[in-house]
């Protein structure tokens, strides 16, 4: 199965019933597959007029209680930023898939990249936090897409599947489970103010059409949902809560695997470079080379770095100029060595082995 198809199948298995999108290479197969499959499960597929509209449509659908999703690549991702901010501010669960390609601008439509990791984290205006998953295989395209819907509903936040052309177009055999785990969006208790958070900092969801009479606005709002845009304290409290509901749950959201925790040289990867590093570790058969492989990149699981107690250096191969390497630098005292790669090809295991030789 192709990675993009596995993504669409994972979404449908997770109960996604609304897809609004706009065609763009290398993500288009997801939209095409949703167009084919959603009508068969009583779902809605709509090809919108652009990515601003795609993002808007999935937010609208989410307020009626539907699990909704869109898929795009760099140029479309840039257009989605405006309404991604709206989804953050209004705490609207939704899933955004980015099959990354080389940028800036139209760049390399058919070549893989990881250049949008920081845009995903910070691309819309204002302070906020989101959740981003990064699959390294077709199996993970299926599993992490399904998981993205649970996280979106649990935290009421846009969740990003930050994949890329390589995994999107990769073909691998996968195991499809009979059922994927589903965490329901919690409803707002009647009588509670619509934006009053529970202990987990997340308010219950007042679905449209259920008589809540909720006003949803991207303006700074009080717990009634009413605009209140000039109170410094209220704005600060709201934005801090939106950030903290994600950041305080870092460890719970974290998803990674660890190889050789005693190692002195530690690779940190997410997405396709993980495959090259796994090959290197296998080929060399040495236990002084560690590997932290992230499936969740944002919020960044900093405590995972501490599990490598003897680490002397962290090597970070990314298909960009070192976006996540910088994040790692913030958390550790040891040297962090980015291994950037642009142009669309993945780091080869030999390239990485050569890098290790130089560092010895």
């Amino acid at each position, binding site marked *: 199965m192709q990675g993009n198809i596995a993504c669409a199948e994972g979404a449908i298995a997770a109960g996604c019933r609304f897809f*609004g999108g706009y065609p763009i290479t290398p993500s288009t197969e997801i939209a095409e597959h949703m167009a084919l499959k959603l009508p068969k499960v009583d779902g*809605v597929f709509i090809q919108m007029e652009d990515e601003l509209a795609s993002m808007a449509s999935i937010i609208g659908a989410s307020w009626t209680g539907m699990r909704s999703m869109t898929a795009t690549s760099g140029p479309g991702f840039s257009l989605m930023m405006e309404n991604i901010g709206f989804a953050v501010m209004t705490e609207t669960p939704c899933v955004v898939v980015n099959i990354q390609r080389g940028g800036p601008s139209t760049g390399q439509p058919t070549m893989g990249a990881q250049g949008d990791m920081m845009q995903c984290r910070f691309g819309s205006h204002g302070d906020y936090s989101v959740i981003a998953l990064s699959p390294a295989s077709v199996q993970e395209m299926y599993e992490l897409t399904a998981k993205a819907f649970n996280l979106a509903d649990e935290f009421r936040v846009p969740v990003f599947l930050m994949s890329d052309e390589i995994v999107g177009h990769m073909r691998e055999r996968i195991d499809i489970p009979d059922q994927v785990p589903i965490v329901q969006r919690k409803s707002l208790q009647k009588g509670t103010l619509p934006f009053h958070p529970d202990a987990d900092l997340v308010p219950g969801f007042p679905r*449209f*059409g259920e008589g809540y*009479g909720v006003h949803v606005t991207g303006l700074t709002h009080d717990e009634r949902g009413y605009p209140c845009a000039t109170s410094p304290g209220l704005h600060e409290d709201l934005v801090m809560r939106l950030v903290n509901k994600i950041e305080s749950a870092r460890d719970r959201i974290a998803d990674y695997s660890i190889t050789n925790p005693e190692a002195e040289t530690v690779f940190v990867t997410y997405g396709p470079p993980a495959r090259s590093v796994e090959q290197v570790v296998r080929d060399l058969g040495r236990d002084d080379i560690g590997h932290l492989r992230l499936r969740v990149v944002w919020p960044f699981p900093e405590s995972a770095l501490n599990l490598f107690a003897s680490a002397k250096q962290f090597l970070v191969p990314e298909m960009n100029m070192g976006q996540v390497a910088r994040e790692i630098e913030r958390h550790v005292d040891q040297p962090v060595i980015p291994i950037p790669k642009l142009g669309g090809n993945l780091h080869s295991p030999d390239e990485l082995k050569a890098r290790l030789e130089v560092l010895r």
Partner: protein
Amino acid sequence: MSYQDWFRQDRLPHIYCSGCGNGTVINCTLMAVDEIGWKENETVFVSGIGCSSRASGYIVTDSLHTTHGRALPFATGVKLSNPDLNVVVFTGDGDLAAIGGNHFIHACRRNIDLTVICMNNQIYGMTGGQGSPTTPAGALSTTTPYGSSEPAFDLSELAVAAGANYVARWTSYHVKELTRAIGAGMRTPGLSFIETMTQCPTNYGRRNKLRQVTDQVEFMKNHTALRQKLDRMRESGQKVPADVIAIGEFVRRDRPAMGVRR
């Protein structure tokens, strides 16, 4: 129940300037809703950004106050995912015709079962009176200090050409006709577009020799004529003055529509 029960009392006072035409349009809309007998919990108001778009927040139902120009794609998502909801969109001339122009023509083309009410005050009210795509040629605004040199959009003609099932234009002077048109739009499956010329005394009237609110309302009364009458005048070779605005029903038809309740 009366139309006043639809107001969100605890949101008062509202942000509108005294003499603003938007309040009239909200009243007419709620009277139409009340007359049809829609239920509060089955009705959703969606809007973009602008003075006009604030309307959604003054009504007791579920409402979605979105981003500038994007109300229609948000409403598309709401309506297609739950066709049992009655979805009404409030928008302004800048919101709908400038930043949201592309969404407007595509929503009309798809003919989604929405009622779209545009408060056309021919100006960007909220941001302090800049020119909009419907500012008449020659009119003064803060960004057309020497008079607008661009031709204006005719939003109703645009909606007709793009495929909406119901299109009408009235003004905030024509309260009865406007209420009836909104009701007719709500009853028509497919996209209904009701354009209402509204006075913005603060940012349009003041700069364009219509100082008093009553001057602007008088203007809407005296410079409007039924579209059919204007067509007849043109056919018989009579000259129609350039500042006369066509009002009335533009189209009522039965093109295939999307998102209609099953």
